[in-house]
């Protein structure tokens, strides 16, 4: 069976969707991503979709469900590279990408993820800093 390759870069899993997704491929991707988040402790998933000419409710559901599982496993989901025509269509379709952050491209997506992770770390030692400053 075909599978979509998942790349790991630091704490981020990166997936590029280039083919017209069909059911089996979508389910396999969801499973693979879930397993890989658990195995690697990844903190974020970046899904690059600039090759997708449309996002219908089927792909939309896949993205939302990947985001939901990721969140439970404490990882953020960012969708990068959505074509403008696709974004416009999604609004009319009525699809809200609940729990998903979007970025113009992979680079910005990575920057978004890095700043979120940095923020979290800062929050984690915020108490310490107060002690130093006081």
């Amino acid at each position: 069976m075909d599978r979509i390759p998942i790349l790991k870069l630091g704490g981020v899993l990166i997936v590029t969707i280039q083919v017209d997704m069909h059911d089996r491929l979508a389910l396999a991707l969801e499973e693979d991503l879930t397993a890989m988040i658990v195995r690697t402790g990844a903190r974020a998933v970046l899904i690059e979709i600039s090759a997708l000419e449309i996002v219908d409710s089927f792909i939309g559901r896949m993205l939302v469900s990947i985001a939901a599982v990721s969140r439970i496993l404490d990882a953020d989901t960012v969708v990068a590279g959505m074509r403008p025509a696709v974004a416009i269509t999604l609004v009319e379709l009525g699809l809200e990408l609940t729990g998903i952050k979007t970025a113009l491209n992979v680079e910005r997506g990575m920057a978004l993820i890095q700043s979120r992770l940095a923020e979290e770390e800062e929050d984690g030692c915020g108490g310490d800093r107060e002690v130093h400053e006081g």
Partner: protein
Amino acid sequence: MTVKSTKVETLPIRSGDDVVRVRQRVRALAIEIGLGLVDQTKFVTAASELARNALDYGGGGEVRAEIVQAGMRKGLRLTFEDQGPGIADIEQAMTDHYTSGGGLGLGLGGAKRLSNEFHIESTPGAGTRVTIARWK
């Protein structure tokens, strides 16, 4: 005004791969009648929703694609047909977020919003026919 069909073809919807082929063909026809990129994308998305419904709920079916002309205006009309169980309550099925199959329940309502014309007929036990059109 009378509407003329100038080109008619029928595509099967029997598998997920067929749904992909329907999308590709609708895209090509949308380009042929001169729809802009956003309109193409909207109409291909609507077609994808209806093709998937015909496959998932109708047990498969087919779509007839027609390039239509009314005066100087060109359009693309798609008729999705299946011989599946049909829809008992169309109003309920059309409601956003209603799903009987674990979907998002956006396909029918979305296809209507993404088209200029939308028409649905269904006979429980006999099947479903959905017609959409987008005009240039």
